[in-house]
């Protein structure tokens, strides 16, 4: 058996129910190489590496590590074999600091933590060029810091084979560059790395070889140097595909939705959206970019009336909708579809049928005690036909549908209500390329009909192509709104991390306020007044803090004086004693 390979996986199959996740998959990882595992969502990439990491056991097939056949039944086994995995969502203890998260699970038998752990870990960090504060608590860390910590953790365990599951999905351009530097350093140290991604440019940049999966089947493995993006896409999708997203030019109308000085609290009670100003015109797609968790969710929920607004105004066609119920906002023609990470959480009822889900927002409109299922079935049939939903019928529970079809059902229902504003967050989350393009088409059609669309997205490349303008959020504040045709990923990345703030460029001109605003004077005044109150309150709080600090200082000084006097007296006594 050749010793060239760190990992060999042969004939790996895995099924979940009747769904085949992997079928006869082959994977080889050479020592000291970076291998990209490429495939669309649902092609079985994560399933495959999870079997290497001991999270699932294969139904069939063999795994060889360093040429020896092994059986990996648990993450513990994987750890012993030198396999470490960095998961898509961090699995860290939020209340612990960085170093303790790394030493968890290694202090076998010992009752106390070793004092020298900080030094020991710092050495590893220096070797690979990680910059991280080991005493920082995880809940204070950014996504990128958490990820760095996860990587350090697997290195600390002595992993030689490292799997990274979509590490770049949550990072900015600059952070990705930093991550890739670390990965290259690890490769030099002789580590073997599998990186899962579906971004082709990253594949081309970082990897030595690419393995491609499609619908659970192994397609091929190629040397990165001998291929190109077009070829990879064709392998991945199975057919030729046009990689350009249509960007039709539409006629922009007056501002449909204007947000003024909006402040919204997060679940924890701090400001998730802080003094936000922006507007959407009819016939445009406004993208919202930002690192995960910088207020996108709270913004969407505030617009839909699902989250109380702390201060500010959300004005729809000249009417302030703050304080209206979700139902009333819906009736004004503002549709919201938020696709959360589990993809079913909001807007759909998973165990109900498509037909039942269709009438979720309108079931009350029919007279009488009973739910009108005929209408639901009829609407479901229309959406299934119009958007090409693949399903066994209108009676099928939504949770049984595949991701793309779930999202089509959701969007289909929202569009049926003929909204004039669509708020959509992550509508292509987890979709394959074909389904994603269908969703983009739907959004573009709506845009051409004069609907204003707020598009919260993850993938900057997509947003640059699809959106007309892009608003960047960072730490609950807006960093600027840029024209999608005149900006670059690098600029967006800088804004996402807060290094670049376009709102400060011209302080004399207020940012994010439409010239032809539809907001009436009274509302404006109210917003201004509320803003003044808020600022005054902030100033007051600050002043109070200063007073408290001064008082504390005075107290400390008094204590010091007393101590000094005491010391002087005892010195005197001592002298007298002599």
């Amino acid at each position, binding site marked *: *058996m050749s010793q060239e390979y760190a990992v060999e996986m042969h004939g790996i199959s895995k099924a979940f129910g009747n769904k085949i996740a992997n079928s006869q998959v*082959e994977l080889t990882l050479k020592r000291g190489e970076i291998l990209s595992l490429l495939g669309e969502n649902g092609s079985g990439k994560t399933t495959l590496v999870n079997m290497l990491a001991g999270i699932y056991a294969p139904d069939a097939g*063999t795994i060889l590590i360093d040429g020896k056949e092994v059986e990996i039944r648990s993450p513990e*086994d994987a750890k012993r074999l030198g396999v470490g995995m960095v998961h898509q969502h961090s699995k860290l203890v939020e209340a612990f600091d960085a170093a303790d998260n790394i030493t968890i699970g290694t202090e076998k038998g010992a009752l106390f933590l070793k004092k020298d752990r900080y030094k020991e870990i710092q050495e590893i960090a220096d070797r690979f060029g990680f910059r991280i504060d080991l005493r920082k608590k995880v809940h204070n860390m950014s996504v990128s810091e958490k990820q760095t910590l996860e990587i350090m953790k697997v290195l600390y365990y002595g992993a030689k084979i490292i799997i990274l599951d979509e590490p770049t999905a949550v990072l900015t351009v600059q952070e990705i560059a930093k991550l890739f530097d670390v990965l290259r350093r690890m490769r030099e140290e002789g580590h073997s790395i599998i990186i899962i991604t579906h971004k082709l440019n990253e594949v081309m940049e970082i990897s030595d070889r690419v393995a491609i999966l499609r619908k659970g089947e192994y397609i091929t493995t190629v040397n990165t140097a001998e291929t190109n993006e077009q070829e990879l896409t064709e392998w991945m999708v199975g057919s030729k595909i046009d990689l350009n997203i249509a960007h039709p030019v539409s006629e922009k109308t007056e501002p449909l939705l204007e947000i003024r000085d909006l402040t919204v609290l997060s679940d924890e009670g701090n400001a998730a959206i802080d003094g936000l100003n922006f507007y959407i015109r009819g016939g445009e797609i406004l993208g919202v970019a930002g690192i995960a968790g910088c207020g996108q969710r709270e913004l969407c929920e505030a617009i839909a009336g699902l989250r109380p607004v702390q201060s500010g105004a959300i004005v729809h066609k000249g009417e302030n909708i703050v304080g209206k119920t979700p139902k009333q906002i819906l009736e004004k023609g503002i549709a919201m579809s938020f696709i959360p990470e589990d993809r079913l959480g909001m807007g759909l009822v998973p165990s109900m049928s498509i037909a039942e889900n269709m009438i979720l927002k309108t079931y009350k409109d029919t007279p009488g005690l*009973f739910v009108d299922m005929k209408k639901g079935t009829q609407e479901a049939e229309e959406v299934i036909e119009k958007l090409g939903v693949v399903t066994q019928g209108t009676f099928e529970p939504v949770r049984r549908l595949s991701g793309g079809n779930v999202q089509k059902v959701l969007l289909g229902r929202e569009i049926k209500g003929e909204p004039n504003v669509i708020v959509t967050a992550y509508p292509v989350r987890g979709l394959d390329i074909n389904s994603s393009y269908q969703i983009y088409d739907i959004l573009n059609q709506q845009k051409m009909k004069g609907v204003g669309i707020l598009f919260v997205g993850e993938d900057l490349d997509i947003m640059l192509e699809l959106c007309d303008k892009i608003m960047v959020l960072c730490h609950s504040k807006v960093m600027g709104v840029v024209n999608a045709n005149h900006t670059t990923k690098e600029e967006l990345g800088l804004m996402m991390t807060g290094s670049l703030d376009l709102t400060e460029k011209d302080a004399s001109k207020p940012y994010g306020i439409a010239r032809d605003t539809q907001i009436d004077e009274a509302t404006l005044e109210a917003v201004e007044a509320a803003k003044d109150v808020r600022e005054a309150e902030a100033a007051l709080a600050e002043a109070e803090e200063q007073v408290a600090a001064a008082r504390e200082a005075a107290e400390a000084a008094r204590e010091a004086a007393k101590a000094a006097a005491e010391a002087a007296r005892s010195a005197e006594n001592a002298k007298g004693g002599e």
Partner: protein
Amino acid sequence: MPFHVIKRDSCPLSKKILYYVIAIVIALLIGAAILAAIGVNPLSYYFNMATMGMVGNRIAYKAFENYLKVFVPLVLTSVALSFAFKMRFWNIGGEGQFIMGSLAAAFVAFKFGPVLPQPLTLLLMCVGAVVVAGVYGCFVAALKVKFGTNETLLTLMLNYIALYIIIYFANTAGDWNIFLNPNSARTTFGSFAEYASWPGIPIGRFTLNICVIFTIIICIIAHIYLKRTKHGYEIAVVGDSPNSARYAGMNVGKIIVRTVFLSAALIGLAAAFKVGTAGILSTAITGNVGWTGVIVAWLAKLSTGGIFIVSALISILNYGSTVAASTFGAVDANFANMLQGMILFAVLVADFFCRFRLVRTEKAVPAAAAVKADAPEAAEIPAAPAEAEIPADAAEAAAQAGEEVSNEQ
């Protein structure tokens, strides 16, 4: 690992029924072994239990009347609990709500029975029980909606509060205590059967209590309510995805409070039926329906029709075992509880096999070069049986040895 678990996409009804029957048979066999160990003939015991002693009995109709007295409160309580459970509101306070309903019904009977005509008394008993039990349940819902309290804990604790309230009334003598029997020197509950007792419809010698008819009607209404009405739709949405419910403009808090009120009120009604049939209070008035109802509702997967059937069967088990206990002195009536627990476990296992199946783990031929070309065929060849069937522990030992070697390296 020679076997692994795979999820089924669907399980045909016939197979499901087969699994459930096998499960119940296994539970009964275990019970039979225990009976045999005590020296009781299991067959005759089970026969006596399943027929509730009606075979060869001159007054078999009496046994059936008594059986219905067990069945009515159980089925009503189970249906009531399914309302809350559908909404993922874990109402395990059926016992407490039942007791409060009983107290209210008895209070009405003692207070107004002597002065009002009987039908009106019975009606007022129902109203009183429904309101008191409903409020006793739905204030927990209100707390949950308002402050996010845990309904499981609160309903559970309220069971004990209700229980001690009824025990207090049972043990405390005093002129104010209208629940007691004034003619008895000891503190015992008094009877109100002469003022308030549910009438029956005579069918031959058998008397069909009117509560049975009401119960059947209520079950049908409950089924329609949950399946067809807007309220039922709301309950299902709130239970499955509260976020979606809010998003669709539903007033989730209101729906929770309303549904829990209905759930608890229906349990109160069951209590009014029970009290009006017994004609006397008791600290054991619930007959444990608040607990058994939870099991029934889950065994029936919260379907109203299923609850009807499961309640009927569990009632046979419960009542049958009391009857059998009088014939077989060695076997306590509590044997039914043990059997019930065993059946529950067995059915849960059957449930597991309805949703999953065990599959043998295949092994592909490990020759790396061969695999790529012949992979599909390789998997189909049942890899050298001798190697494949190495006992699990041997494989484990080998794996461990392998690990040690690699660790040393």
